C-alpha cells in the first residue's frame, strides 16, 4: 500500500519505535519565542544540562513586542521582562536570537518560511499552536507545550503517538473575491472547531495546487482551529520557486539534490487516509465569523443561524456566544458597523496579504467610524512593503502601518481592542477576550477586511471589485 506525505516524513524521523510506547520522533527544526520557552530553560538549568543541538533551534520575539516605537524600551514592565529573559536565555544557552531590531525579527511562523529555514520533508515544532503554518511547505509541523519545548531543547526529540491521517480535497476554481482564508473558514464552519481533533490533515485538490505559497500558509495555519494537530500540503514547483534563493535554502548542487528528494515526498496514488473530505471551491463565498469560535462562520451574505437551526445540545453555548457578541440569532452581518479593522497575525500578515489590501484600497479612503491597523508579520515584510510603496498607499487611505509582531491577534501586548468594540480581523481566533477583555471579533480575509475598512461596516467585497 502506498504511503501518505505525512507517513513518509514521520517514518523518516522515528529514532525508536516500541510497542506500547509513543514513537521517539526526531525534530529537524525547533522555533522558540518568549512566551512559551522561559520555564523550559529553567528546567534545563535545574537539571544542569545544556541545549543538545543548538543549531536546530531558532529564536525570535513576537507575542509581547509593541508595534510602535520598537527602537525604544518596551513600556510594559512584564513584557519587557519576558523579552529580556529571552535574550538572556539565548545568550546563556548559545542560541541565535532574531530579537527586536534584528533584520530577521518577526512572527515565528512568518520568518521560518521567508528565510528558507522551513524546508519540505522536515519535522518542525514550536511552543505555539499555529506552527501548523509551516506544513504549507510539505513539512510535519505542530504546536507543543512548554514541557515538550524543554524535551526538544534537551534531546531534539519528542515522544509522539502517530495521529490519524485526514485528506481534505478542494477542487474547482475559486470565484472572484474569494481567497484562501475563505477556504479554511468555510471548511472549519462545516466540520466545526473540533472536527479535526486527533487528525493530521493533508490539503489537496486543484484549488490548493493553484494557490500561491503564502496563500497555502494561511490554510495550514488555521488547521488547529478545527482541532487538527497540523495541516500540510505536498511540495511542488510553487514550493521550490518560493524557496529558491532564500537565505537558508540550500544552494548550488545541494539545491538540486534537495529538490530531487523533495519530489519523492507527495502522497502515493494509492495512499489511504483514515478520513477524506471534499469541497467544491466554486461553492465558497467570502466568509465571516459571527461567534466565539472559528467554526461559527457564515458566507458574508448569509444569516446567523436561528435557535431552531442549532442542535438542541449546542443551543446554550450558541446563545452565550451571541450574547457576548451582542448579536441576534437569525440576523445578517452585512452592514454591521465596525470600530476596528486589524490586518496582521501569523495567518495574514505576509507581503501578498499586504499587496492584496493595497491593491484594493489604492485611491480609496478609510471610513471615518473606524481605525485600521496594518501589522506586517516581519521586518522583511515591512521592508518589502516600503520598497514597493505600499506604505504610501496605506497612509493615503488613512491606515496605520505598524512594526512587526503578533499585535492585536491575542491581547498580550499593547495592541488591544477595547471592551465592547467590534473588530474585523484577519487573525485566527475569535475567542472571548482574545483581542482584549470583552473585545468582539469577526474573522475574515484580508480582502474582506480591506472592503470593511473603506465602508466602515461588514461588506461583500465581490460587489466592490
Amino acid at each position, binding site marked *: 500500500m502506498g504511503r501518505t506525505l505525512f507517513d513518509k516524513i514521520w517514518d523518516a524521523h522515528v529514532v525508536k519505535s516500541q510497542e506500547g510506547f509513543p514513537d521517539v520522533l526526531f525534530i529537524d527544526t525547533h522555533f522558540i519565542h518568549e*512566551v512559551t520557552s522561559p520555564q523550559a530553560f529553567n528546567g534545563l538549568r535545574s537539571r544542569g*544540562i545544556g541545549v*543538545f543541538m543548538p543549531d536546530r533551534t531558532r529564536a525570535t520575539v513576537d507575542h509581547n513586542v509593541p508595534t510602535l516605537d520598537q527602537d525604544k524600551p518596551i513600556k510594559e514592565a512584564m513584557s519587557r521582562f519576558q523579552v529580556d529573559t529571552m535574550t538572556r536565555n539565548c545568550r546563556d544557552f548559545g542560541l541565535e536570537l532574531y530579537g527586536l531590531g534584528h533584520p530577521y525579527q518577526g512572527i515565528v511562523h512568518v520568518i521560518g518560511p521567508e528565510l528558507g529555514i522551513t524546508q519540505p520533508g522536515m519535522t518542525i515544532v514550536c511552543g505555539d*499552536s499555529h506552527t501548523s503554518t509551516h506544513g504549507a511547505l510539505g513539512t510535519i509541523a505542530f504546536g507543543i*507545550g512548554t*514541557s515538550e519545548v524543554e524535551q526538544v531543547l534537551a534531546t531534539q526529540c519528542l515522544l509522539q503517538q502517530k495521529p490519524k491521517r485526514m485528506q481534505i480535497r478542494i477542487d474547482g476554481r475559486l470565484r472572484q473575491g474569494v481567497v484562501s482564508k475563505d477556504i479554511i473558514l468555510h471548511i472549519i464552519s462545516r466540520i466545526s472547531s473540533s472536527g479535526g*481533533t486527533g487528525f493530521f490533515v493533508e490539503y489537496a485538490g486543484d484549488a490548493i495546487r493553484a494557490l500561491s505559497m503564502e496563500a497555502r500558509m494561511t490554510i495550514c495555519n488555521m488547521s488547529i482551529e478545527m482541532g487538527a494537530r497540523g495541516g500540510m500540503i505536498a511540495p511542488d514547483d510553487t514550493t521550490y520557486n518560493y524557496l529558491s534563493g532564500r537565505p537558508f535554502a540550500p544552494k548550488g548542487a545541494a539545491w538540486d539534490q534537495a529538490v530531487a528528494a523533495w519530489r519523492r515526498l507527495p502522497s502515493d496514488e494509492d495512499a489511504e487516509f483514515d478520513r477524506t473530505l471534499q469541497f467544491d471551491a466554486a461553492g465558497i463565498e467570502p466568509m465571516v465569523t459571527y461567534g466565539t469560535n472559528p467554526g461559527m462562520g457564515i458566507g458574508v451574505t448569509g444569516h446567523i443561524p436561528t435557535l431552531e437551526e442549532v442542535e438542541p445540545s449546542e443551543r446554550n*453555548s450558541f446563545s452565550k456566544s451571541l450574547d457576548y457578541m451582542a448579536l441576534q440569532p437569525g440576523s445578517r452581518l452585512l452592514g454591521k458597523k465596525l470600530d476596528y479593522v486589524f490586518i496582521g497575525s501569523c495567518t495574514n500578515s505576509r507581503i501578498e496579504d499586504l499587496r492584496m489590501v493595497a491593491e484594493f484600497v489604492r485611491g480609496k479612503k478609510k471610513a471615518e467610524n473606524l481605525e485600521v491597523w496594518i501589522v506586517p508579520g516581519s521586518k522583511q515584510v515591512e521592508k518589502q512593503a516600503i520598497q514597493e510603496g505600499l506604505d504610501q498607499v496605506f497612509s493615503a487611505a488613512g491606515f496605520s502601518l505598524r512594526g512587526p509582531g503578533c499585535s492585536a491577534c491575542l491581547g498580550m501586548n499593547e495592541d488591544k481592542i477595547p471592551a465592547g468594540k467590534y473588530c474585523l480581523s484577519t487573525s485566527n481566533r475569535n*475567542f472571548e477576550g482574545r483581542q482584549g*477583555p470583552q473585545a468582539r471579533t469577526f474573522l475574515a480575509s484580508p480582502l474582506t477586511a480591506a472592503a470593511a475598512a473603506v465602508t466602515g461596516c461588514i461588506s461583500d467585497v465581490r460587489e466592490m471589485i
Partner: protein
Amino acid sequence: MNRKEFKRMVSAMVPLPAENVDTDQIIPARFLKSTTRTGFGENLFRDWRYDAEGNPRKDFILNDPSRTGKILVAGKNFGCGSSREHAAWAIADYGFAVLISSFFGDIFKNNALNNGILPIQVPDAYLRFLFGEIARDPGVELAADLEHQFIQVLPGGDQQPFDINPYKKSCLINGYDDLDYLLSLRPEIGRFEAARYPG
C-alpha cells in the same frame, strides 16, 4: 524529575458544562507573562471568574465556596485553541487533578498529562449523566481509578471505563516524565542525526 504519583482519587466534582472551552478562557494571554510555572491558579478562568474591576462574579461556579472538588467536569472539546501549557499549570495550581469531558483539545491533553493531571474522556451520554448527578447532589463523590482505568459515582455507581496510553499511564502512576526517558536516549539520538545528515 519526579512528580506526585497518581493511582486513585476520590473527590467531589465541579461542573462546567460550557462547550469548546478554549485555553484563552482557561487563562487569558495577558496573564502569561510570568517566567515560572507557579501562581497561574489565581487567574484560572480569569474573565469568567472576575469582573473588569477584579471583583468575583457571584454566578461563576469557582466562586461558590462550597465547591471544593478536585475533579473538573467540563463540556465537550475542553482545552481547544492555543498550545499554552500555562492552561494546564493554572488548572493544577488551582488544585484540580482530574478533568472529565467528552472530548479534549490534543495539545492541551498532552500538556495536562505532562503535569500530572489526568484527562478522562467519556461518552456524551455519560457526561450528561454526571452533570445530572452533580445537579441532584452537589456533594456527590466520584472515584477515579487510574490503575484499573474506570470512574465510578459513589457509592456503588456503574464503573465507566476509560482509555489511556499505557506509557502515559505508567508515567502518571510512577510520577515519571518524558524527559527522563528521552535523556537516556541522547547517544542514540546523536547517532540518528549523524546518519541522517552526514557531513
